[in-house]
């Protein structure tokens, strides 16, 4: 042994010495050789020992090989393989073969024969395993080849009896990836792939057992139906000594339970039988208390997706029986429930109420959790937070499908609000929100939930507000409790204002009848005395009013309880916080917003009619034949106005209406620019006068970028239309500047070409359009002089018709609202010149895809300086679909000012035309030649402001000396 070790040490030592010697000449030679395979051949022939050869192979593997030379390289490699005596070199060659067969466009059929032949003669187990791996690669490259597949399966079966675990592993992998279940194998007529794989469930090596289980899973993933026979074997593997085996076994058991949920399995040591899914559920539940946390995570996750399990078993997972000195003890949950039922909740805890009660019979106590008993009780108390999160998620999935289970798991979820890791707390709050439709919180539970409102983490508090929005509570005390705690929260963390108000809005509108009896107390009215009028700017008072007004919306008797100033405050809040305060029918007051009060009545009908209106408007516009039609301008003007108003009234259609209006405005601008009188003059004469036309062209360009990047849900057809408008604008620009800027014509022609390439599939829809005309004249355009070109453009621009805009299903405008800073403050933010001040920004973004990359904050100083700040990706949160929240800090700094002044802060949406334009449908048109494509148009990058600017008062003071 020692001698052997010594030898190895020497070998390694010698390796280190030799590499630098040989490297340099090798490189030189390579440079002079044109063919890759030839170079490799020379290198390998030159190699005097295995170390050199390995070195060459390693270098070779670093560079890609072109498709044409793959075949040759493979031949050379195989040739060397046969000659080579060193195992490690053969192993490397084998792995290279695998790599090469992955080359795009190369069909690896030809490798199969050679590799299978070499398998027969190979003595080294490691090399065998590597060769099988190569076959696996080849096999996955040619999944449908009828000739290759059975051969590979045959080879795999033959080598399964190898003594080395790696070879058996690879064989099982091959079987898993390529084996078919239903066709019996040639040489073993009565056994199919599945039974062969399942034989290795009891292999002596845990790695092989794992590989066998994985291969079985692979079969399942490939859509083959695996048989139920292996269920028992798989269950036995759940108690394997090795964690990876257990983990894979959990998956197999789960797969089987999904495939055969209703089949019946016997319970060992009794005559009873149960459904397979129940049995599997019990067994996997047992794994939640496994020794390895990986398995526990796996088991907990898996439980969540077993929805077919019987309710009886499901409820067992939350079961726990306590005892103390052999006396039965009630759990804290039961105690809380009883205390609540007996009406003593508010009086607090009684002394020793957890004292054990009746004596238990020793025979009935079951210490080992059988089946599903207490699986989640274990999982939720696990040491690793990964397990706890998995358990919480599983609870959520199960509870969503079973209301009774949701009711039961409530206590446990509420307990999780107290977890030591924030992620877990947050997750459990989210989960509770998701199942909140099924549950009603009891007062004691609500109390625990509300305690979390004091958490210092903003995410937790906001999640909790969100939860309260959807929560049902049972009594008016609960409402009062919630209100008190929310006000406390508001007091402690004033920044939560909006979130708290929103929460109270929903709380009020959900529980009008519970709020009703509280109204006199909340508004502190008195039957006889006038009470002082509360301060209207107090956020707490606004919070109370939001609750009351929202409750009053569906409770007509409530306004009778309001005092005079409440009505006044209502009018004020309805104006200032209209998103929080609903319209009310107040006695003796005329309806201020008749439109709003009608809206809820018509509901979906009005949306339908609005849609119809939108469509009709568009149809009307489409009657305009070309841009010079008389009266077209007026029609466009009116339609734009109509659409804008429609967007304001119908929030659902705001995106679409806005989109159309902007598009039409572009057309209108184009039309006006073309109709200018100057236009008919000779081009050189009007150079100085065409300022308006230049401005219009510029504006249209800007608008098209907005159209393209600000709206989500656009289809390629709309994108084509937008690009078309852009092209028109560019043509206009060209006409105006053709003389002054040589070379602009070529650029424009290139743009037309790239347009044609990008929207090949859309061209039929663009008939009669500007592009259509240009493409007809293309041969002429390419050859003519700039002057001629300008003339052609001019006429085709004026003659081309208006493209009809077809609306996509869903179209949304990206928007952003800056909540913080509010811009109301009169106190300037003072800081010393040369230092920085941090400004907290809190904004909500809607319908913005990938805001992490796109959204930027712009700060505009009064002297015209502007800074663009890119927020950190972690500053974006995703509270809901299509909604994002940006909470970040920007740093301001400036030289000294004599007096405070305002800076403007706004959000920008960055775009880059190169990245966004090829959407999936467009891609299909030109995907064949991506590489050969010249840069379509110089990528235009820019930003679109998409939030209202907010003014912040700042004052950089000169530094004191």
């Amino acid at each position, binding site marked *: 042994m020692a001698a052997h070790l010594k030898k190895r040490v020497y070998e390694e030592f010698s390796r280190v010495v030799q590499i630098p010697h040989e490297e340099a000449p090798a490189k030189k030679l390579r440079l002079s050789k044109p063919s890759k395979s030839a170079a490799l051949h020379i290198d390998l022939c030159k190699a005097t020992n295995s170390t050199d050869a390995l070195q060459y192979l390693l270098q070779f593997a670093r560079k890609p090989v072109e498709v044409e030379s793959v075949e040759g390289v493979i031949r050379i490699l195989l040739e060397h393989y046969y000659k080579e005596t060193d195992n490690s070199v053969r192993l490397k060659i084998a792995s290279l073969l695998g790599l090469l067969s992955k080359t795009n466009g190369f069909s690896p059929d030809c490798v199969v024969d050679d590799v299978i032949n070499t398998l027969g003669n190979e003595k080294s187990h490691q090399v065998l395993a590597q060769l099988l791996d190569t076959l696996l690669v080849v096999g996955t490259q040619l999944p449908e080849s009828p000739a290759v597949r059975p051969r590979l399966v045959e080879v795999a079966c033959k080598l399964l*009896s190898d*003594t080395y675990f790696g070879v058996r592993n690879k064989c099982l992998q091959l079987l898993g990836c390529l084996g078919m279940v239903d066709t019996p194998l040639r040489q073993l007529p009565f056994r199919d792939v599945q039974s062969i794989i399942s034989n290795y469930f*009891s*292999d*002596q090596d845990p790695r092989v057992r794992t590989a066998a289980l994985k291969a079985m899973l692979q079969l399942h993933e490939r859509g083959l139906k695996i048989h139920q026979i292996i269920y028992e074997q798989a269950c036995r593997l759940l108690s394997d*000594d090795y964690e990876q085996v257990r983990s894979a076994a959990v998956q197999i058991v789960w797969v089987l339970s999904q495939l055969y949920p209703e089949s019946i399995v016997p319970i060992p040591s009794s005559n009873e039988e149960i459904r397979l899914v129940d049995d599997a559920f019990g067994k996997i539940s047992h794994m939640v*208390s496994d*020794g390895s946390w990986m398995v526990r995570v796996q088991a907990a996750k898996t439980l969540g997706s077993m929805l077919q399990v019987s309710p009886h078993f499901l409820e067992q997972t939350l079961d*726990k*029986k*306590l*005892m*103390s*000195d*052999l006396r039965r*003890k009630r*759990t*804290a*949950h039961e105690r809380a429930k009883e205390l609540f039922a007996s009406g003593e909740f508010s009086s607090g*805890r009684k002394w*020793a109420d957890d004292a054990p009660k009746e004596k238990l019979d*020793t025979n009935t*106590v079951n*210490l*080992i*959790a059988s089946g599903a008993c207490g699986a989640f*009780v274990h999982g*939720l*108390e*696990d*040491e*690793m*937070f990964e397990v706890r999160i998995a358990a919480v998620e599983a609870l959520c999935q199960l509870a969503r499908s079973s209301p009774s289970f949701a009711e039961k798991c409530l206590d446990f979820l509420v*307990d*999780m609000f*107290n*977890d*030591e*890791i924030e992620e877990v707390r947050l997750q459990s709050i989210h989960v509770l929100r998701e199942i909140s439709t099924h549950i009603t919180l009891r007062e004691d539970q609500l109390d*625990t939930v509300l*305690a979390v409102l*004091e*958490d*210092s*983490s903003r995410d937790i508090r906001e999640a909790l507000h969100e939860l309260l929005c959807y929560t049902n509570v049972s009594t008016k005390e609960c409402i009062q409790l919630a209100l008190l705690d929310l006000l406390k929260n508001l007091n*402690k963390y004033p920044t939560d204002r909006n979130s708290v108000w929103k929460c109270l809005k929903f709380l009020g509108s959900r529980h009008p009848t519970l709020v009703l009896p509280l109204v006199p107390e909340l508004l502190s009215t008195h039957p006889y005395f006038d009470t002082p009028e509360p301060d209207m700017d107090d956020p707490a008072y606004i919070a109370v009013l939001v609750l009351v007004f929202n409750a009053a919306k569906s409770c007509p008797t409530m306004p009778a309880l309001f005092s005079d100033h409440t009505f006044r405050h209502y009018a004020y809040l309805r104006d200032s916080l209209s998103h929080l305060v609903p319209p009310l029918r107040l006695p003796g007051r005329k309806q201020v917003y008749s439109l709003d009060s009608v809206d809820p009545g018509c509901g979906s009908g009005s949306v339908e009619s609005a849609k119809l209106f939108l469509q009709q408007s568009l149809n009307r516009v489409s009657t305009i034949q070309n841009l010079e039609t008389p009266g077209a301008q007026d029609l466009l003007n009116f339609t734009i106005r109509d659409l804008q108003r429609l967007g304001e009234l119908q929030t659902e259609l705001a995106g679409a209406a806005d989109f159309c209006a902007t598009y039409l405005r572009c057309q209108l601008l184009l039309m006006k620019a073309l109709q200018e009188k100057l236009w008919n003059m000779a081009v050189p004469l009007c150079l100085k006068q065409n300022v308006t036309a230049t401005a219009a062209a510029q504006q249209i360009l800007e608008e098209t970028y907005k159209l393209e990047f600000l709206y989500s849900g656009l289809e390629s057809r709309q994108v084509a239309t937008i690009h078309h408008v852009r092209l028109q604008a560019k043509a206009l620009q060209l006409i105006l500047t053709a003389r002054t800027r040589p070379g602009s014509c070529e650029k424009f022609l290139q743009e037309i070409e790239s347009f044609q390439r990008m929207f090949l599939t859309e061209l039929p829809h663009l008939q009669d359009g500007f592009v259509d005309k240009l493409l007809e004249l293309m041969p002429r355009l390419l050859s003519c002089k700039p002057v001629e070109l300008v003339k052609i453009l001019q006429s085709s621009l004026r003659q081309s018709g208006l493209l009809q805009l077809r609306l996509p299903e869903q179209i949304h405008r990206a928007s952003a609202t800056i909540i913080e800073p509010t811009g109301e403050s009169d106190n300037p933010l003072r800081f010393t010149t040369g230092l920085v001040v941090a400004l907290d920004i809190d904004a909500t973004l809607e319908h913005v895809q990938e805001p992490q990359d796109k959204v930027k904050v712009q700060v505009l100083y009064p002297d015209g300086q502007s800074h663009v700040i890119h927020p950190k990706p972690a500053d974006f949160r995703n509270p809901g679909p299509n909604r994002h929240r940006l909470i970040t800090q920007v740093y301001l700094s400036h030289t000294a000012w004599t007096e405070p002044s305002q800076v403007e802060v706004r959000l920008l949406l960055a775009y880059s035309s190169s990245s966004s334009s090829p959407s999936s449908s467009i891609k299909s048109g030109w995907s064949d030649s991506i590489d050969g494509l010249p840069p379509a148009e110089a990528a235009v990058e820019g930003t679109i402001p998409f939030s209202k600017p907010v003014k912040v008062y700042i004052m950089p003071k000169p530094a004191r000396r």
Partner: protein
Amino acid sequence: MPEIKVTPLGAGQDVGRSCILVSIGGKNIMLDCGMHMGYNDDRRFPDFSYITQNGRLTDFLDCVIISHFHLDHCGALPYMSEMVGYDGPIYMTHPTKAICPILLEDFRKITVDKKGETNFFTSQMIKDCMKKVIPLNLHQTVQVDDELEIKAYYAGHVLGAAMVHIKVGSESVVYTGDYNMTPDRHLGAAWIDKCRPDILISESTYATTIRDSKRCRERDFLKKVHESIERGGKVLIPVFALGRAQELCILLETFWERMNLKAPIYFSTGLTEKANHYYKLFITWTNQKIRKTFVQRNMFEFKHIKAFDRSYADNPGPMVVFATPGMLHAGQSLQIFKKWAGNEKNMLDVKMQVEYMSFSAHADAKGIMQLIRMAEPRNMLLVHGEAAKMEFLKGKIEQEFSIDCYMPANGETTSVITNPSVPVDMSLNLLKREMALGGPLPDPKKPRAMHGTLIMKENSLKLVSSEQALKELGLNEHQLRFTCRVQLQDPHSDSDTLHRIYTHLKSLLKDYTIQHLPDGTVMVESIVIKVSSSAEDANSKVLLLSWSYQDEDLGSYLSSLLKKGLPT
């Protein structure tokens, strides 16, 4: 028969002065060396005279292992090593080694300085004793001597608490010390791999209890403290044991952090403060949360918790104070209690509430069962618990796992007979030959019979093929053949009979080579069958069967087959 003997000197059907002697594979090991809190006389320490009447213990013990730093597990250590006399190795984990002397010194001070006892161990003795300690790491296998090896597992009871796996050859014992299967705010849960020991010696403090989730307990506690603080009240928390104090500190500290509370928390100075220092250092022994966040901030570097000064008790406003001792019977906690209880009469809105909370870190009945499931022992032995409670758990264990469970009292010896496997080197040639015979892969689950020669030479065992054995030992091979006569009634001639036997066997034994040789014999593999008619009766034939002992199976089968006669 080899056996493992276990004798508790303390903690047998009792809680306190844990001290268990184990004899395994000729090695003697002492597990824990604790004192009893309930006694002040000789019964305080384990009775070491059980080991030897006179003289030092060094000759009788191979090593001492301490599971954790609580005094009922290590309190008698200086007494044993310095006063009784023991110079061998003492094993304990790093945190235990660090904290243990602090507690021992405190214990000595109280006994000698306060109670005025004499004939007690001195500070120097503690130091000398600690010099004999060899520290252990988790999952590190330590070779005590050539045969005895020990390995520590995480026990989660207090910082540095460990379970030990003791192994001699293929015999092994696991001693759990005190352990906790449910993780808490600063410690993880006990864990052990499937080591299948011969005996699992487990504590059983909560043998008859199944506890509610810790979350409810924690939440109750925090809610009470929080409410009281919000009302402007003062909270006094008497704490018992080192370890639990830290748990509560962490709990309150994180709660303060989370809820953004400002009220001060004080910690009465004393030994806990010193120990706290070590808690900061041994982060690897804590739970996931603390281990993960310590890069940003060590959780034991408390932001809100400060050392207590006597004068602070009079400060106005809300505060929380941790004070020792836990029973409110003396010391600082009593002083503060008196002060604040008196105040309560004056201050009406501060209501003194007495809360009893249990935050204990022992495994409950379910936890014990869970550990048994993890380790899969062959036998179970319960210590560190009350006899009546153990009885219940014993019944349950025997019922659920169908393994033997013992619960010896102090001084009572339990022996468990083991069945150690004896490793034998097998020659490669023999192995390959056997594999070639019996299919491709050996099945580890099934025993297999094989031919070979066992050579025992110089304390080593070797299994080789018989030819090789003969060669090695220089012996000649002797052939051993069995011959057997079978009487047959058969009217045919000898050669016909032989032919009939040939066809008969041919039809029955299809897989064997059967030859009819011209010299009047039938060969089945290597078995020779001859026929001769007896002199008296031509009808009765005598068959002569002869086989070598290697073919014993086939030979005896053939003889019994032929005894039944030939088919007519």
